């Protein structure tokens, strides 16, 4: 009897855990009720290894899909694994059983399965977001963001802050960067950042710390404290949740920080100067308009450069309250030069292999 009770109790406990992780993986009711009479509306699916509600990458993608659904009257479904690898097979299967016309995917482990489906269904347009994915029939397209360009602008802002003698800047010409881990994609951010800093003044030093963890804000705070102690007055964080610790350290040390991926300017008001935003929703929308006007090519690697739909720095009232009007003007000028090609940002060679 005791054993039975203990087993039941354990099962109960475990079921709680799973209900904790479980999100609405498949929710056919989520599809918008488009008019089914007449021409069939296009069916758009978004498959992600993450879950919604991250205020970042995933939410941005979903907003893009929803925008498509609204403007073009498509049906859509969103399939999320919530980071649970055991659900990957299930969500990809469900996605293709739904018979989509267009699939946007954010893979982190189910690439092979997606390729398999892509080979079997050459008519379905599959677009992989943020990484390059090629199947043998070359029907999957990839979307990549040139984060070097957004980071370049972050570097420009950082250099202006350390040069400019703002309220909390110091004498030393040092700026900092905190990376989640020492991997090529993070290095590509820093590569762009360094170029941006050097564009304003090549003598400014860039100090980088890698935390080795994307999920530990305590480490992020320690790293940021160290960089501020070394004389940095502004830090660019590229470290996910770890980076939230850096932003907090900025407020506590009364120094500046730059956010990443989504607009984090309001997280620690007055200290987060700007954020390097990756506009996945914009890119998804752009790809879909290409599909609609027929200019979309299967198997293509689309690169999104600086600006809406790519990467850009978020300038809002928080930024305006920190930077002087002259600085903002310089930022705008550099931005313009970057967009019209006067400035060329080098790409990090180890990351952009193809």
């Amino acid at each position, binding site marked *: 009897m*005791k054993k039975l*009770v*203990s087993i039941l*109790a*354990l099962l109960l*406990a*475990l079921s*709680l*855990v*799973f*209900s*904790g*992780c479980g999100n609405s993986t498949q929710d056919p009711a989520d599809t918008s009720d488009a008019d089914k009479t007449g021409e069939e509306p296009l069916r758009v699916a978004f498959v992600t290894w993450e*879950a*919604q*509600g*991250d*205020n*970042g990458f995933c939410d941005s993608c979903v907003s893009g899909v929803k925008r498509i659904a609204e403007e073009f009257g498509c049906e859509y479904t969103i399939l999320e694994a919530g980071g649970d690898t055991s659900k990957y097979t299930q969500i990809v299967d469900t996605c293709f059983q739904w018979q989509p016309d267009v699939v946007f995917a954010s893979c982190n482990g189910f690439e092979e399965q997606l390729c398999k489906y892509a080979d079997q269904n050459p008519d379905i347009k599959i677009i992989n977001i943020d990484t390059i994915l090629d199947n043998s029939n070359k029907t999957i397209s990839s979307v990549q963001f040139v984060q070097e360009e957004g980071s370049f602008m972050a570097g420009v802002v950082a250099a202006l802050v350390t040069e400019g003698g703002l309220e909390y800047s110091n004498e030393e010409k040092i700026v900092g960067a905190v990376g989640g881990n*020492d991997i090529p994609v993070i290095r590509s951010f820093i590569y762009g950042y360094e170029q941006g800093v050097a564009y304003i003044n090549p003598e400014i030093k860039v*100090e*980088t*710390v*890698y*935390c*080795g*963890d994307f*999920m*530990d*804000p*305590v*480490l992020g*705070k*320690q*790293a940021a*404290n*160290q960089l*501020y*102690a*070394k*004389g940095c007055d502004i830090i660019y964080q590229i470290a*996910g*949740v770890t980076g*939230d*610790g850096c932003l*907090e350290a900025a407020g506590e040390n009364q120094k500046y920080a730059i956010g990443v991926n989504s607009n984090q300017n309001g*997280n620690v008001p007055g200290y987060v100067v700007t954020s390097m935003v990756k506009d996945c929703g914009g890119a998804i929308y752009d790809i879909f308009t290409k599909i609609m006007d027929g200019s979309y090519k299967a198997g293509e690697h689309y690169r999104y450069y600086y600006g809406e739909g790519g990467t850009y720095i978020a300038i809002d009232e928080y930024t305006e309250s920190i930077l002087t009007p002259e600085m903002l003007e310089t930022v705008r000028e550099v931005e313009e030069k970057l967009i019209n090609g006067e400035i060329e940002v080098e790409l990090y060679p180890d990351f952009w292999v193809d």
Partner: protein
Amino acid sequence: MSWNLILTILSSAFSASIPVLLAGMGGLFTHHANVFNISLEGMLLVSAFTAVAGTMSTGSWVMGLVYGMLGSVFVSLLFAFFVLKIQMGEFITGIAINTLATGGTTYFMRQMFNVKGTLTSPDIVSIPKWDIPILRDIPVLSDILNGQPWLFYFAFLVVIPLVYIVLYKTRFGLRLRATGFEAKAADAVGIKSHSYRLIAILICGVLCGLGGSYLSIGYMRMFSENMSSGRGWIAIAIILLTKGQPLKIMMLALVFGFCEGLGMSLQGYEIPVQFTYMLPYVATIIALFLDSRKKKSVGNKKA
């Protein structure tokens, strides 16, 4: 390496190692009661969450701390129920509790606050920081030790001495250790080993509650998914390595914290990050090795 940087590393070695230290102080009670408690991680995580939820709902850090301790005590009661009442394996229970803590805090964070990843809010009130008059005037020490949350001083000046005294100088501590050493013998002389184990688990819950609250409303002012990030496991490792001696636990927790900070700053000297990530673990083992050698040579002399 600039002077400023060294002070920062030392300061964060002290302040960031408090959660490990408090969890270690709690865990040593269960260690001495011969309860293999691996749920320190879960206790830290749950209390970090409930502490944040407490300050956000009441607007006071006192309630945050109370909620933090209650959260962790609740977990320890759960652990005690399974282990002592229905005699389930300690290891299995510990794993279940840690999984439950990760999933549960994430779930409630999303349900209650509608955020994923990190929970930050101006409503989170952090534990007040103390500016200590005498300490303020001592040049180096003031940079390292002054201006920390009061729980920091409480941990070093009250918790550690108290744990030491309770464990080695009181009847309770003696009986607790006797229970852990040979429960049947203890029972035979009239010590209720069962209740000693229960008390040890509860003390562990209270101290982990302090550690978890320190994590989310002391050192940081936020909660993030899986925020304890293995600190409970490090505490367990330290307890096992030191055989549950409070002063050595404190020493190793500080060594670990210091090397974590030192590792980061060494990245500035072209040392590959893989080595700097390793540093705290390697240093902890070396510290222990040196310590055990010292003891051995003393033993040899005696012999």
